[in-house]
């Protein structure tokens, strides 16, 4: 297969549009999420997004704070130990964003159901609670039977719930390693990136590093996303920053807190966008923004040994540049 390596801006130009169902956050709130793709969506002024985030992450927090999201579906909408997601919270509280609540399992099940193209997914969770009875998307429907309607088990006659499968228009999935055609390895929990990669109509990979295909053939059991379902590969180290990517870099604790604080207000968000979204021109200036020393320190975390078996196959930046998909280069 031919190389699918394209630039970040090209990926957003080709695959994103206003109003799309956009999925990311198939990673946990502080972990492997393609936060950089959210920054790019804002640089390209996308709006009216319908965000499908298994969990909120700094990406959704940022997109919501900037007013780019009108609908969102989530299992968890905070930032774990970093507290409430101030940007998302503000957008929900002021009514600008309708947030449909599910749980962390039901979001995964909805990706599973989308991947299988099922009409519905049986639910033994979320039922009997306001997750079933209340819908932000259909506020007048109470109990909200359009959200998680009842389904009767034909074996016992008992009533359970039926979840609506998810088939997002676009998923930007952060992975640790990918080869140029889009075979990807994730280190750390998949959360629901595997199911999402099959549920989404189009998948763009955002990879911390590009590896030689020989790495893929040595570890096919680690290749949980095969190239045949991938549209494009973007090489972008520290794509999850300030979040962490196990094996690659740790969480940037101070920027996590700083960013969330900024997103709590409109003014803070405007400043954040100026300084950390619109400010860089390329990967180099992005890494300068993080700070080269800090980036280096974050790369030497306690999980970096997880990357050791694959290091020798990681391609240096100049080789990656040479592999850009020919029809799109220049």
């Amino acid at each position, binding site marked *: 297969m031919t190389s699918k390596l394209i630039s970040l801006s090209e990926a957003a130009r080709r695959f994103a549009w206003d109003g799309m169902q956009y999925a990311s956050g198939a990673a*946990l*709130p*502080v*972990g*492997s999420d393609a936060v950089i793709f959210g920054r790019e969506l804002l640089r390209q002024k996308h709006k009216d997004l319908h965000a499908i985030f*298994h969990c909120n992450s700094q990406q959704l927090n940022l997109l919501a704070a900037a007013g780019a999201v009108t609908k969102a579906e*989530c*299992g*968890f*909408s*905070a*930032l*774990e*130990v*970093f507290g*409430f997601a101030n940007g998302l*919270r503000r957008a*929900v*509280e002021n*009514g600008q964003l*309708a947030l449909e*609540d599910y*749980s*962390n*399992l*039901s*979001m*995964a*099940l909805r990706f*599973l159901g989308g991947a299988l193209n099922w009409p519905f997914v049986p639910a*033994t*969770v*979320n039922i*009997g*609670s306001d*997750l079933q009875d*209340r*819908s*932000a998307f259909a*506020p*007048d429907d*109470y109990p*909200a039977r359009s959200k998680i309607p009842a389904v009767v088990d034909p074996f016992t006659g008992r*009533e*359970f719930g039926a979840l609506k499968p998810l088939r997002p228009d676009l998923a930007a999935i952060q992975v640790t390693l990918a080869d140029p055609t889009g075979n990807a390895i994730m280190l*750390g*929990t*998949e*959360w*629901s990136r*595997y*199911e999402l990669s099959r549920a989404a109509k189009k998948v763009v990979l955002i990879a911390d590093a590009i590896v030689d295909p020989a790495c893929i053939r040595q570890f096919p059991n680690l290749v949980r996303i095969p190239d045949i379902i991938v549209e494009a590969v973007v090489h972008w180290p520290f794509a999850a920053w300030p979040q*962490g990517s*196990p094996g690659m870099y740790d*969480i940037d604790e101070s920027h*996590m807190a700083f960013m969330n604080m900024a997103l709590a207000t409109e003014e803070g968000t405007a400043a954040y966008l100026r300084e950390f979204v619109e400010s860089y021109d390329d990967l180099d200036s992005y890494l300068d923004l993080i700070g080269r020393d800090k980036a280096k320190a974050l790369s030497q*975390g*306690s*999980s970096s*040994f997880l990357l050791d078996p694959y290091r020798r196959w990681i391609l240096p930046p100049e080789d990656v540049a040479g592999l850009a998909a020919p029809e799109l280069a220049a």
Partner: protein
Amino acid sequence: MSAALDYSRQEMMAIATGREIRDGELAIFGVGLSMLAGFFAQANHAPNLRSMTEGGVYGATPVGGLPWGIECNRISSNATSFTSALDALGFLVASGRCDVGVIGAAQVDKHGNVNTTGIWDGEIGPHYRPPKTRLPGAGGANDIACGAKRYIIMVTHEPKRFAERVTYVSSPGYLDGGDSRARHHFVGGGPSAIITTLGILRPEPGTNEFVLNGWFAFSGIEEIRANTGWNLRVSPDARLIPEPTAEELANLRKVDQTGALRKK
């Protein structure tokens, strides 16, 4: 001896929660307090605890302090298996296999229903509207509440958090009490305890209304009732919960390296 030991209310709550967890159990913890209580149990009296996080991280113990999340390096650096949410919350929790979970609450009611979704000004009403204060949402707690054999609710004991009925049920406890969980055919058994900064509440057999089961050395029945938003009844076998032993405190603090629980 209590003064001598000098422990915080949060530490007492974490230790009391940890004591509920038995050796060999399959257990799921969330980030923060819940994880501290769980790993305290493992360090203290449950060395064969089989613990997991919602993300499908198995065999890990925190390294270098309290993890920032359930997949950060502090929990990812010594795992034996990484899988997924579907695996941990689905195959192992919603299936009914998991023995015990620990969840938090912004608001809890007398039947153990938990709200972590939002605070409204009064009832929501028939037309759904955004909360005045948006909270983190259900996360994996709803799945634990539906599927785990039992679960423990950890919550700071304040009147505003203890309601006759939560405004929004994020995670089902005993719903309207009695056997009202039964109509949903949950495989999970429901909350076995509400453990707070002041004491321990347990469901009364039959009604499944939470009643006071124990107080701490630094609290008492009256203080607890005054801080509970419903007319809290006292179980006939309510008693003083033993203070942490020096060993328990040492084991807790080994886990809580950064002193998150000592701050208050």
